[in-house]
């Protein structure tokens, strides 16, 4: 691996920053091999089009400069989040057409790591394409995340570089979860050591770089999604960092980004790994090695993502967490944000919604509208009391054809007798207002669909609306959700 060489530029127009950074790195020609096909990996984590989607002007500038190098083939690749159909998303955002206009090819990648060329229905894995001696350029964007601190150069790369083995229904970390020991329904791994998942996740991200390190990584800091995120719709805040980092080493770039965004090196596991281990024989460059203008023109560091699920929740929404792995926590936090912001109206109709996640969670505060999130919560709460509702009914008095006076006398006699004996019937019924959402972790889209199945569109108008809107972008895959039982659906 080449010696880390990164350029940090701040203050000014994005394209000017890019030009300056490339000049510092010796130009595109210096970073790429001649006469080799080139793959440009961009960020397209739909349903959040921007600011986390790679900036169009930056992509155009790069493609225009690549064309001047007379490279044989230029392919632009992108992968969406949440299991949306990559081609449809690219069409919706206008990326596929845009890339064509710039004289390149667009290749969408679905959640299983298969590349789908825009003009053919043939699917083939992307991994061999990148692993061969092609030029590989990465254009990630930055978004804050409670698990990694922020998704930067490393966080985006693993989507393209991790070699998939089997199909997985999991969306956010689909590539990671293809591994046998973290396969779906193997929630027992979480039970033993949920913290280990976090470590393994970071390992996968860093390990994917061992297969292929991008020849050039350009991170646009002019539009950063900060705060709670990861969606702008759910409480994220756009932040203009007014900088650009480019270089040949994603780890060095992420370290530089961490410093510029106000992260300490021991703040997140990924940053710890980068600093502690001598990964890929990497020498992390010092601050003085980075070139560029001073950071005085940069805006102050933004607010960081908060992983505390229980703070700032609406009064009608509660979250009870046991021992939860980071993957469940990430998806649950996304759901909670969706319900708090987009689904604020739905919560008024449901009156209350109680999410339960993790292993050995506490009892929910109420028996109504309980949502068991993930296999871990479903399996570990099987013996919990909230599955059953006890209904106490007073016994009906036997009707006697006796005159009123005799009744009164009998009542008086009964009063005199001490103590009272109440005849009560206790009936135990199944709690029908529990929604079980399988998955390890369940995907946010599946959870929303399951909630809609349970509580119907009338009770969840906002969720129902957004699911309808996003429906056209989803894959026409088999519906694996269990059918709703009759009698359910009353909030």
């Amino acid at each position, binding site marked *: 691996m080449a010696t880390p060489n990164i350029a940090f530029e701040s203050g000014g127009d994005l394209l000017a920053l890019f030009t300056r950074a490339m000049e510092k790195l010796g130009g595109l020609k210096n970073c790429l091999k001649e006469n080799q096909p080139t793959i440009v990996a961009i960020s397209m984590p739909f349903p959040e089009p*921007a*600011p986390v989607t790679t900036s169009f002007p930056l992509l155009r500038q790069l493609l225009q400069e690549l064309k001047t190098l007379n490279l044989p083939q230029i392919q632009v690749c992108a992968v969406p989040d949440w299991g949306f159909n990559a081609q449809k998303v690219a069409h919706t955002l206008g990326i596929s*057409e845009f890339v064509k206009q710039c004289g390149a090819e667009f290749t969408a990648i679905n959640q299983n790591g298969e590349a789908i060329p825009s003009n053919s229905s043939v699917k083939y894995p992307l991994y061999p394409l990148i692993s061969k001696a092609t030029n590989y350029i990465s254009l990630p964007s930055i978004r804050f995340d409670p698990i990694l601190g922020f998704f930067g150069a490393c966080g985006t790369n693993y989507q393209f570089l991790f070699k998939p083995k089997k199909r997985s229904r999991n969306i956010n970390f689909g590539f990671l979860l293809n591994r046998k020991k973290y396969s779906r329904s193997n929630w027992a791994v979480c039970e033993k050591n949920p913290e280990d998942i976090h470590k393994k996740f970071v390992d996968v991200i860093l390990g994917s770089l061992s297969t292929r390190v991008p020849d050039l990584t350009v991170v646009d800091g002019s539009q950063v999604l900060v705060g709670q995120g990861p969606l702008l719709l759910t409480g994220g805040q756009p932040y203009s960092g007014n900088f650009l980092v480019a270089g040949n080493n994603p780890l060095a770039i992420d370290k530089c980004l961490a410093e510029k965004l106000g992260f300490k090196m021991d703040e997140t596991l990924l940053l710890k790994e980068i600093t502690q281990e001598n990964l890929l024989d990497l020498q992390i460059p010092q601050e003085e090695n980075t070139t560029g203008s001073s950071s005085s023109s940069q805006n102050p560091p933004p607010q960081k993502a908060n992983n505390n699920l229980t703070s700032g929740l609406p009064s009608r929404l509660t979250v009870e967490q046991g021992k939860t792995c980071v993957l469940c926590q990430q998806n649950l936090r996304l759901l909670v944000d969706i319900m708090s912001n987009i689904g604020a109206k739905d919560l008024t109709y449901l009156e209350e919604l109680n999410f339960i996640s993790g292993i050995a969670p506490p009892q929910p505060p109420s028996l109504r509208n309980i949502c068991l999130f993930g296999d871990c919560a479903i399996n570990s709460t099987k013996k919990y009391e909230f599955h059953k509702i006890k209904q106490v009914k007073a016994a009906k008095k036997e009707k006697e054809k006796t005159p009123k006076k005799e009744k009164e006398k009998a009542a008086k006699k009964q009063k005199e007798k001490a103590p009272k004996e109440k005849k009560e019937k206790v009936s135990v019924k199944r709690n029908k207002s529990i929604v079980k959402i399988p998955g390890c972790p369940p995907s946010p889209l599946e959870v929303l669909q399951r909630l809609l199945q349970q509580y119907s569109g009338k009770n969840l108008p906002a969720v129902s609306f957004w699911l*309808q809107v996003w429906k056209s972008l989803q894959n026409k895959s088999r519906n694996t959700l269990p059918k709703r039982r009759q009698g359910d659906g009353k909030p």
Partner: protein
Amino acid sequence: MTGDIIGDYEKLLERKWKERSSARISDAEIPSNTESSNVLQIKNLSGLTNIAQELGAQLFDSNENHVTIITKNGKYQAAFLHLQTSNEGETRITHENFQEFQDKNVEEISPDKILTHLSEYIYKTYKVKPNFIRIIDVELLQLFVEFYSKHNGNQTLNVTLSFLAELFARWMTGLIAGNWIQYPELPLVTFLRNIASPYDNIIVKILQFLTNKKFNKKPVAIFIDTPNGVLPLRFIPTASGGEFTPVQQAKARPVDWEDFPEFLRQERVRLNVGHIIYFQLREMLDFFNDVIITPIPITNARWKSIGQRGLYFLKNYGESWVTYPPPRIINTFFRFFTRFLGYNYNIWKLSYWYAPSVILNLLVESTGGSGTILCLYRSRTKNGRKKNLTGFTIRIESAAITGIESTDPQFVKSLQENGKNIDLTPEKARDVFYKGQQTYPNLTNVLFISEEFFDQLLRKLLGQFLSLSPLKLVNASRTLSRLRDPRNFYMYPETVGFQYLRKIGGFKLLRWISRLFFDRYEF
């Protein structure tokens, strides 16, 4: 010439003051227990002037002590003192000549210094202090003088909407050019000046847009409930937007709330109008005061707040505003019927707290919270001839609309093919998008709107608003179904929101609107 204008202005000020005094006296003279107490006879005072005075007092602090300085190209010409000389709020206007400012350029002197200097002099002479100074250029003053001399004292005062729009546009031009300065500046003036630049003088544009529309066939009476009584205005729709005819008699509201429908019924017959719209001035001003303290550019949270405040005003039917005859949809039976059909339209259950976030979320969904939307439309003349292509761009930053600009004429010209304007078809939208990206680097969407369709939509929505009934909902849904036709409305790239809009018809869209914009529980 300048002297004539100042003289006219002086006469005008005196006359206005006399009219106000006479109004106050006549008000006091009327006994309260007679039948005529419901009718306040305000002589020689048009309703429009009365409303302007009321709004001026509330929004411009015109009743406070102040000094008006007249300038010509910045040079001092004359000064008028507006001072309250008694505790009863009586205002005296005196023409003063401050020799120390003669032939001096007032614009070069700091307004703070002028105010301090005048305060000392006025306090010595009149034992009162001015609260603010107002510097008006002769050019702008001439406009006001012409306006008053043309219309004041006219018993059948007809003010067209286009005239008002023009007057406001000229005043705004003067304000932006520095021909109208007030120190210390009022929040309203600051707001109007600040909003003009990034939002392309949007208030003037909306007024001018409305002047060309004809929404309702029947005349409408607008009643504004002020502390001094009810001020009626008759609005007659005309081909050029319509005109206001102030009614000479200002009404006092009935003491008992139960008499209110009868009062409105009688007024409707008396004024011979289709509808009466009754507003509470206090509520309106509260809303305006909330809006004018908004910092520019308006942030996402502030857009939500303004939207919530505006919708809350609309929701308060019966308190903040009322119409007579009330819309059929208010009727419980009709409401039940529409609810049975799946539409829940109840103005009292408007989701004022949630609706703005739905709109902003859709905006974020289409642009990602940052970008520029290029809206292009082509209007047609009455003969059906196509006019030139025009448009505007909406700049979005941090999930909020931070700017509206007219499109660059050079860019519109570059869209021509063989010297002719292009057709607004989906095929052309892609070309416009890529051409537009060269002019507007952050362009995220191109929107084609047919102005004819937009007019029809607006006419249906606003025209039927006062008489909304289940059958008219069906009619409205048919109009909304036209959104599916790309000749009427098209967006490139086709965002998910737009794709869904094209997929569903008008009926379904109305149902979504009812579900998202209205709360369900009402009985």
